């Protein structure tokens, strides 16, 4: 496999398919500026930028290198904190009389962002700092998600020392940098032309470039582990210490990542990453956009795919409840062809999905809500950003002439799978859209769910909060402020 680092092609004839990019940087290349804080994609200390060929040239993304596997870099460009170009100039000397000035002179100048962060107290212990530098540098060079507010861009970077104030200020103040990636794009085009594969100590890996190639590979290796963004599978390796025997990386399957927006629906390939669906989802409904904003940090959304979030069948995945409520359909493709099913039918039981050997999730179709549809999607977690839901609720009520003609209600965190709330829906359907129906439906959730108690919330809290999310929907319709996130801080 080959990738580009600081303009040079790095050629690795043999790679452990589940070696992480972080370990390779730190322990093979001696580039120790990138840090390991958690090895599970939750702290951002290992943030690097990965550039991929795109229509506009090179599209950069901030990702957590601790849970990116090396083969995922094939045909891509890598940028680490060392790439920003500050190297001590050995020729200069420190003159004791004017030590302060000459110590500055000993180094080549810092990038404006770095200079600002160094001067304004953005670092204390400094360990998380390179990760913040890379996230904010990404924002400056127009990387994916750069249009987001600074706080959102660094929501996946934890700092335990500063309280974030100076970092936010530096992020706000830095100017946009225009990169000329023409040469890099040409370099990438040269090495990314064909799919890569390899073998390491009997363990095979493949990085197909089309769905057809993928389908053929799966036919040959039905037990292969498919890895899209590795935001989940990465932890099997770094935390579970698992060995994956045959791995198919989906990141280069171009036609699996397509996003098509029409007046009727959004259809997205299973490989579409959360960062890429953020804007289309927000256009479908603001609540859906807000939900995406709160899925992981930007680094996680830059890697994690909607399809992966569905395919792994997590009971607390944030995408599925909303997509179920919106009436999404899932298309799977296998040796026998394609089949399409309502998304909720894919989730059979805890850890059990309706995916047959050799099948892969191909696409998700989300119909646009018709006129008169009242939508409310809400995620409850201990922390707003980069947290996992205690409860994720989604409601789509079709109201015609004051009557609820259709109700789709789905929850995550309430059962072993993301699931619709049949009793709740029944209590709404056919009723006048009003407080009585809402209250009856809220009560009905007790028939739909008997949630577990775990670290994210007790059963009682989950039930009560789930019911209150429905009450919220009604209050919002009445014009009430319903979320503390809607409040602005006081003026300075």
């Amino acid at each position, binding site marked *: 496999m080959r990738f580009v680092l600081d303009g040079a092609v790095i050629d690795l004839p043999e790679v452990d398919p589940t070696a992480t990019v972080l370990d390779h940087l730190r322990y093979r290349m001696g580039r120790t500026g990138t840090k390991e804080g958690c090895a599970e994609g939750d702290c951002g200390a290992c943030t690097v930028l990965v550039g991929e060929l795109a229509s506009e040239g090179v599209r950069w993304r901030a990702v957590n290198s601790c849970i990116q596997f090396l083969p995922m870099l094939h045909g891509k460009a890598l940028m680490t904190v060392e790439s920003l170009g500050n190297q001590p100039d050995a020729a200069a000397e420190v003159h004791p009389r004017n030590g302060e000035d000459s110590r500055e002179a000993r180094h080549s100048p810092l990038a404006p962002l770095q200079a600002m962060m160094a001067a304004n107290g953005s670092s204390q212990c400094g360990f998380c700092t390179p990760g913040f530098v890379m996230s904010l540098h990404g924002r400056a060079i127009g990387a994916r998600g750069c249009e987001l507010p600074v706080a*959102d861009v660094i929501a996946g970077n934890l700092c335990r020392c500063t309280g974030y104030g100076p970092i936010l200020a530096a992020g706000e103040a830095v100017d946009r940098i225009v990169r000329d990636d023409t040469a890099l794009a040409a370099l990438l085009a040269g090495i990314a032309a064909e799919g890569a594969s390899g073998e390491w100590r009997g363990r095979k890996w493949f990085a197909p470039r089309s769905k057809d190639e993928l389908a053929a590979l799966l036919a040959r290796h039905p037990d292969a582990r498919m890895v899209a963004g590795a935001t989940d599978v990465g932890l099997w390796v770094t935390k579970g210490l698992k060995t994956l025997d045959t791995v198919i990386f989906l990141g280069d399957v171009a036609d699996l990542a397509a996003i098509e927006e029409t007046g009727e629906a959004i259809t997205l390939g299973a490989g579409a990453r959360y960062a890429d669906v953020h804007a289309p989802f927000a256009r479908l409904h603001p609540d859906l956009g807000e939900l995406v904003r709160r899925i992981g940090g930007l680094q996680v959304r830059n890697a994690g795919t909607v399809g992966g979030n569905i395919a792994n069948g997590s009971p607390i995945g944030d995408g599925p409840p909303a997509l179920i409520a919106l009436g999404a359909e899932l298309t799977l493709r296998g040796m026998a062809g394609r089949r399409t099913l309502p998304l909720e039918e894919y989730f059979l039981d805890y850890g059990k999905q309706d995916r047959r050997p050799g099948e892969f999730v191909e696409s998700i179709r989300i119909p646009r809500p018709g006129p008169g549809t009242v939508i409310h999607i809400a995620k409850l977690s*201990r922390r707003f950003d980069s947290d996992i839901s205690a409860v994720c609720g989604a409601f789509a009520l079709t109201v015609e002439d004051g009557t609820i003609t259709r109700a789709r209600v789905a929850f995550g965190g309430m059962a072993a799978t993301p699931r619709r709330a049949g009793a709740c829906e029944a209590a709404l359907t056919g009723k006048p859209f009003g407080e009585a129906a809402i209250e009856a439906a809220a009560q009905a959730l007790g028939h739909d769910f008997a949630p577990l108690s775990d670290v994210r919330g007790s059963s009682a809290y989950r039930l009560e909060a789930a019911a209150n999310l429905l009450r919220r929907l009604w209050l919002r319709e009445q014009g009430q402020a319903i979320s503390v996130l809607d409040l602005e801080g006081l003026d300075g």
Partner: protein
Amino acid sequence: MAERDPAWKVLEKPRHPHDSARIHVTGEARYADDLAEPADMLHLAFGQSGEAHARIAAMDLSAVRATEGVVAVYTAADIPGANDVSPFAGDDRLLADGEVLCHGQAVFLVAATSQRAARLAARLGRIEYAPLPAAITAAQARAAGSLIEPTQRMARGDAASALESSVHRLSGRFEMGGQDHFYLEGQVAVATPGEDGQMHVLSSTQHPSEVQHLVAHMLGRSSADVTVEVRRMGGAFGGKETQAALFAGAAALVAAKTGRPAKFRCDRDDDMVMTGKRHPFEVAYDVGFDDAGHLLGLRLHLASPCGATVDLSPAINDRAMFHADNCYFLPDVEIVSERLKTHTVSATAFRGFGGPQGMLAIERIIDHVAAHLAKDPLEVRQANLYGPGREVTQYGMRVADNIAPQLIARLRETSRYDERARAIDAFNAKSPVIKKGIALTPVKFGISFTTTHLNQAGALVHVYADGSIQVNHGGTEMGQGVYVKVAQVVADVFCVPLGVVRVTSTRTDKVPNTSATAASSGADLNGMAAYNAAMAIRERLAAFLARTYRREETEVHFTPGGVLVGAETLDFAAVARKAHLGRISLSSTGFYATPGIEYDRDAHQGRPFYYFAYGASVSEVAIDILTGEHKVLAVDILHDVGRSLNPVIDLGQIEGGFVQGQGWLTTEELVWDDQGRLLTHSPATYKIPTASDRARRFTIALWDGENVEPTINRSKAVGEPPFMLAISVFSALNRAIAATVPGKRGLPPLDAPATPERILKAIAEYRQTGHGLP
């Protein structure tokens, strides 16, 4: 002949950034795991206990040994010297010896050629346990009569009579959770064997001397054979005061036994399971007060599950008692402090060191009194402050530097507290779902180790013949900026630019017998020791120049323009060169011991603190009564750092401390199951604040004043005190919850951390009960 005594007044406040800021942002700053690994480096992992309390009946480590890459596997029997990594009580084992005391305890140690091999192998140990009764919760420990030391009592006057005769009397109880340090750099140590039995340990530790002594005893060597070094830590917050010794000890054991360098870099999840955290506390109180809210009598019961071993729990719980007054005069008071021994990981030092727990207790009591009297809690706070005729603490120390009344009054005004409180009432009246609350809470934090002998420090200053200066001291750098502060002190002594002074890594072979960098004391103690070292050299230089130029010593002046000797001006490098040729020693140690402090722990009376640091904050919050979600909307802080040594550093400590405290009281929840397993052992489940949790409006002002004591530059310690400013967030949340039932006189039953679930529960209970907490 010093032109300026240690307490000189500097009008200009230097704004030097952190000394490593440049290499932080470039990624060049090196942490323990960043040094190139020798080819024969071994990597380590612990086999951990799967039981909370059990006798080890049998251990089969054959599968561990058979794992590819494993070079050695050790158990307690392989330790040549003392199997002890504890700070003083001798009860923390490097490797379990026959009995395990908590889940995750280190039972055996694996050394392998790769980190993955070591970690994989460590999971393959087959350990047979004979379970013993385990106390997981405080209640279980209390029922079993399990304590780490006898219950302590700190009292003044007659609390019982005062309570009897009070017009009003309330009782209540609440709980607050612990806190994981979540330093971004996990525990790490690299041990390199030297010749003739010597050992070098690069450790991410706040306490190199303790690691040195423990490693020496563990290996059966002398302290002189062991050198411990730390250039910087990627955060510590108290979590590397005693906890680093386990990993350093393991690395040293392997290095000594195999003769190969050994690195222990702990996995994040293992780190969270295996290392101590802040003490959770249970608080119960009985308080008597008058119509104006003056506290007349208080009986306060503090109980903390301290975990399986003593660690620093006695001093931490003492500090909770010392801070149960905060800024308030408690005329008749009895504080009883119960230190429970549980079969969970031993709780340890964490920024504030018990102070936050004691302070949250009294602030909640004040909130309760105010709620009962239907007064603004700020009125009750101000009515109870220390003042003339009421200036002695419950432990008999006079509060000689009390600026709390003025500081609070100033912040009340600058934050427009009263106006905002009225606006919030108006908002709440017409907002059914979102309720807001505001609170102003003060901080008075005692500065000094309460174990008096720890209040000492050493430093070593070298002036080289080219005029450059190196300073080394006992303080460790964990991000708090002690290196740059000490460098500034030395630069000021010689009147040279800061860049002339190089601070080198903290090493036990340069400055011996140091105390932990803790108790906020780093700059106070080491700054003064470095000052003394630098002054010794400067005095030698002055005497030498006076002799050489036939002048009086009083005619030698160190100025920013150079060294003046009568009419001559020499640059500092020239002075250094001349002095070297003149055979003058250009190196000196310096030493400092905090004066005037003494404490009788048996009676809990004395002057444990050199001085107090003060501050106050106003927090405005909003809650959602349907989900229990909350947001901190605005924070205004006025904080006292005396005459700041470095405002950039100090402001950073204040903001960072506040946000960390906010995390403790809101999003950071530790959950153990009933078997004593920590369930929140990763950042996926344990949530420290992110950037958006910081209030969008956040103002910090420094109090314009100086330390009444002659500290270095009349500055004050800043590491811990700001943490407790975040109590205003908790207090404001209470008021927001109380706003759900307007006019009710009672306190919502809220425990910390105030997670959405706890807030929702407090709202429900507050609505149901007649008057909130009775």
